[in-house]
């Protein structure tokens, strides 16, 4: 496997802090791609801005490293234009659940066939450690010296309520398990959310590897049925001494691209011809 994984290892070495959780995520993504034997040229990784969002630069796939909070729209547009691409989104919790929240919710109801991997470190890493939407209540950060007062968002629950068709959570500390979640997310036809506990070793001294190791358990281990909507939601709200990881929920509904099948006519848009003279003249008749 290591040799195959190397195929996805870019020229630029990751610039994350040593032991940053994002290494595990990068590793898991590369492993998932390798297991699926995807040619790097057919993979597009879209990100926003944040430590986590630097990820595409460390791979050999195609990538788009956009602006803060807008990776999901970019990915949706790219996927619609060329559904042959395997499109991943790799972003941070601030990017996706903070500034990007509107797009996140709306993506769930559209269900484009993309895999959204959120490196959730519960802080704004790149801007040196302010609170994020998933920061725990009372967490003391640079922007909340008296502790966070906002309730944290629950991305798993919101995604399920919002209509997502594949909702999972992984842990950077377990990249093999994570790779499976990502791999199945890619296989899944429709939007797959993989929220990942990816500790920021520099700015989050609360939610450390240790902290998670003490609390997490795998949904598989308790025989959770991911097709059960209500149960999935129930598990989504578990966030205390016990915190589940694994696949919360999975269901089937048409992916966004499927609605455009008559437009694709068997070919991705990028392979479509430009309009022909006769077609143009036909339409021009309207203007008389």
């Amino acid at each position: 496997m290591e040799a195959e994984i190397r195929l996805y290892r870019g020229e630029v070495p990751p610039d994350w802090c040593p032991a940053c959780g994002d290494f595990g995520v990068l590793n898991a993504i590369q492993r998932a791609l390798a297991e699926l034997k995807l040619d790097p040229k057919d993979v597009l990784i879209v990100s926003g801005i944040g430590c986590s969002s630097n990820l595409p630069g460390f791979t050999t796939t195609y990538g788009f490293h956009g602006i803060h909070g807008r990776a999901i729209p970019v990915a949706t547009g790219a996927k619609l234009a060329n559904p042959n691409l395997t499109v991943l989104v790799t972003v941070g919790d601030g990017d996706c659940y903070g500034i990007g929240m509107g797009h996140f919710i709306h993506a769930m109801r559209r269900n484009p066939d993309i895999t959204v991997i959120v490196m959730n470190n519960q802080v704004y890493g790149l801007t040196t450690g302010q609170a994020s939407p998933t920061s725990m209540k009372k967490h003391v950060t640079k922007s909340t010296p008296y502790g966070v007062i906002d309730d944290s968002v629950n991305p798993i629950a919101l995604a399920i309520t919002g209509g997502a068709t594949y909702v999972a959570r992984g842990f950077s500390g377990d990249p093999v398990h994570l790779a499976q979640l990502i791999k199945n997310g890619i296989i899944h036809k429709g939007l797959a959310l993989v929220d990942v506990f990816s500790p920021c070793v520099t700015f989050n001294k609360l939610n450390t590897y240790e902290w998670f190791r003490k609390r997490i358990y795998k949904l598989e281990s308790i025989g959770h049925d991911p097709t059960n909507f209500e149960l999935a939601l129930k598990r989504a709200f578990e966030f205390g001494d016990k915190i589940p990881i694994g696949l919360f929920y999975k269901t089937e509904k048409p992916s966004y691209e499927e609605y455009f099948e008559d437009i694709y006519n068997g070919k991705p848009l990028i392979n479509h011809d430009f309009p022909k003279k006769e077609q143009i003249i036909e339409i021009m008749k309207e203007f008389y």
Partner: protein
Amino acid sequence: MYESIAVRFCGAAGDGIESIGSIMVRTFARAGLHVYAYRNYQSVIRGGHVWYQVRASNEKLTSFGDFYDIMVTTNKDGIIYDSSQIREGGIIIYDKSKVKFNESEVGKRYLDMNIPLSEIAQLYSRISAMQNVVAYGAIVELLGLDFSIVKEVLEYEFGDKGKDIVEQNIAAARKGFEYANEVYENIKIEFKVKDPRRKMFISGANAIAFGGYVAGCKFYAAYPMTPSSPILHWFAEHSKKGGIIVIQPEDEIAVINMAIGAAHAGVRSMVATSGGGFALMSEAVGLAGMTETPLVIVEGQRGGPSTGLPTNTEQGDVRQVLGAGQSDYPKVVMAPRDIEELFYSTIEAFNLAEKYQIPVIILSDLYMNESTSTLEKEFDIENVKIDRGWIVKEGEVKDYKRYLITENGVSPRALPGMKDYNFVAASDEHDEKGHLISDVLAGLPYMLKTRKAMMEKRMRKEQYILKELEPPTLYGSKNADVTIISWGSTRGAVREAIKILEREGITANSLEIKYLHPFHANEVKEILINSKLKLLVENNYSAQVGGLIAQHTGIILENKLLKYDGMPIMPMEIVTKVKEIVSLKKYEVVK
């Protein structure tokens, strides 16, 4: 003999004014006349006061006219508010039994044409809009047009509503026609059609949309916003036929980022909005600039600031589009000057966007988007050129660098899925390969050098673009007394003003700017230095393009006609202003 004739339909929102207006447009155009039509309405869905003015002529028209000749009104608001703009001796068609008003409220300068519109209409339909159809029949008679055209047009308009509806409408129109013929046989407006071949006509919004389609736009995203929503409607309607993915995302930020994603993947994509939506997009316009992603953005200006006058026009967003997004990146901002140009410019915009891998902004406005005009000639489809720029073919390039530094700044563009060209497009500053230099390398000698080179590479594109944009020239006689400077949609009124002035013995020519960025500084300066009296005409408060001209040429234009009440600038306003400066001999010193 009238040179042109204008008809104004007045009523409340919901009275079918828009529908009768387009019937009138189609009637004239099919009769072989040129048409220019504009609608004034309010941001309410029902009620309020609405008018639709349709002007026709044997010559190509460039404005809906300062005055009109015939009004049809189904309520007194038309008479109270609008009768001051009727041409002396014009005709107002209304139903005296229904429309009551105090004659002293209006300075009567028109002829009454009392037709029992309501009574006749009720013979055929309970919908009050039918009254307008009766009046329409009368107008056709007044102008001496053949009734057969009425049948043809009403069949076209109501065909999809069923035969009955068509018949009812035709019958109502016929009654109007006959009533006018019998009761007002002495009233006639002589109007001979010179060339009876039917003319193509289109609204500005549709010209943009259709232009996009012809240019091969395959991805269109938009969030509704006046005056650009009709572009969305056109695209949505034609998505299947045209093979275009058309979507309405959650907001303008999603709109532009989706379009950037689609463009990055390799299809031509376009978005349209108005000022407020553009403000939201502005961060991502810079993203397109930095990642060198081709994108066409339509900004249909309307009255501002903020929500402002959402259903009225203005040309106030120049500074916004020129300043969109932080720092400097290459872009084109073009302001097409009429409906025809909107079509061709949209195609041109796509070519420039792909050739130079940049965002191109088409600055239109409500006046132009919502006007309908016939065309001198049908759109020239034969000569449409598609230039996709430098998209590499598989195998074409070795040791691929997405952001290769080249003389004209354009680098080889690869599309995801192509072999051996894998790269990451990044909003952070990057080197030729696309690797970030903004973080690990920031401040180091290599980074400083690379940063400088990349910034210069990107910005060099503008020099090359400028060379291929058609420079502005002077319309009209070279040695005119007055040079009128306009841009975008105001050209139409200027052209007409020049004609009127000529008749009054004042020669005027006109500098009509289309490209706002990059800017033809030398050419504009040359023209201005050699012109005598100068008048700047803009549909905004602060002479935004005047500022741009000064910035690039050092010439500050002192004589200005600025309008910012939401209405387009009209020919007679320009005429009046020109006469004023001519009489004061307000020659400007070139400073």
